[in-house]
C-alpha cells in the first residue's frame, strides 16, 4: 500500500466523519440550541442564589 493510498483512505474516513458530525448537528439542531440555554439558566440560578446569601463574617481586629 503506497503512501498516497493511505492518505486517500484517511481522507475518505475524515470526510465521512465530517459529514457524520454535520448531519448529527443538523438532526439535533434544536437540542443543541436548547442545551446552552438550560446551562445558562442553571448558572444564572446558582449566581442569583449565592448573591443573596451572606457568607461574610466580619470581625474587628
Amino acid at each position: 500500500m503506497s503512501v498516497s493510498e493511505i492518505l486517500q483512505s484517511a481522507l475518505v474516513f475524515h470526510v465521512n466523519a465530517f459529514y457524520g458530525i454535520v448531519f448529527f448537528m443538523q438532526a439535533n439542531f434544536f437540542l443543541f440550541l436548547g442545551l446552552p440555554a438550560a446551562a445558562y439558566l442553571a448558572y444564572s440560578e446558582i449566581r442569583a442564589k449565592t448573591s443573596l446569601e451572606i457568607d461574610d463574617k466580619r470581625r474587628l481586629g
Partner: protein
Amino acid sequence: MTTETFSAENSRSHLHYQKVARPEDLISKLKIIAFYAGVVIFWLVVASLYRGFGRNWIIPAVSVMWIAGAITAFVARNDEENTTRETRWVILSFLGFLVLYRGILPFIVPLSSAQMAAALDINIPAVSGEAIAGMLQSVLLLVSVLTPVGFIIWCGQKIRQYHGRRTRQSIFEKTKGVRRGQP
C-alpha cells in the same frame, strides 16, 4: 471547610473579612445542577416517547422555552431568580403533562361507547366514541402548542415590564439631575 481571610490594613477599624465556604452551599449548587440535568434527560425521554411528534415538535418547542427563559433572565436582571425558577417549573410541568397523557392515552382510546355505556349504566351514543378520539388529539395539539406560545408571551411581557421600569427610573434620575443643575 475552606476559610479565606482578607484583612484591610489601611482601614481605620482594622476590619477582617472572613469568607467561609460551607459544604451546604456546595450541596445546594449541586442540587440545582442535578435538577436541570434531570429536566434535560426527562425532556429527551418524553420526546422519544412521542417518536416523530417528539422529534419534530416537543424538542424544538421546549428548546424555544429554554431560550426564552434564558434571554429573559439575562435581560431582566432584577427578577433573575424568579425567572429561572419559573422557567424550569413550567418546562417540567409541560413535560409532566405530556408523559401522563402518553401513559393514559392507551387506556382511554380502546374504550368503545358501548363498553363505557355498560360500565356506567348510561346511554352513550356510538358517535361520541369517535368524537372522544378527535378530542384527545385536539387536547394534545392545543396543550403542546399553546404552552410554549403562552410562555414566550409571558417572557416578552416580563422584558417589556422591566424596560418600562427602567425608563421610569431614568426619567426620575434625569429630573433629579435637572434639580441639582446637572442636566
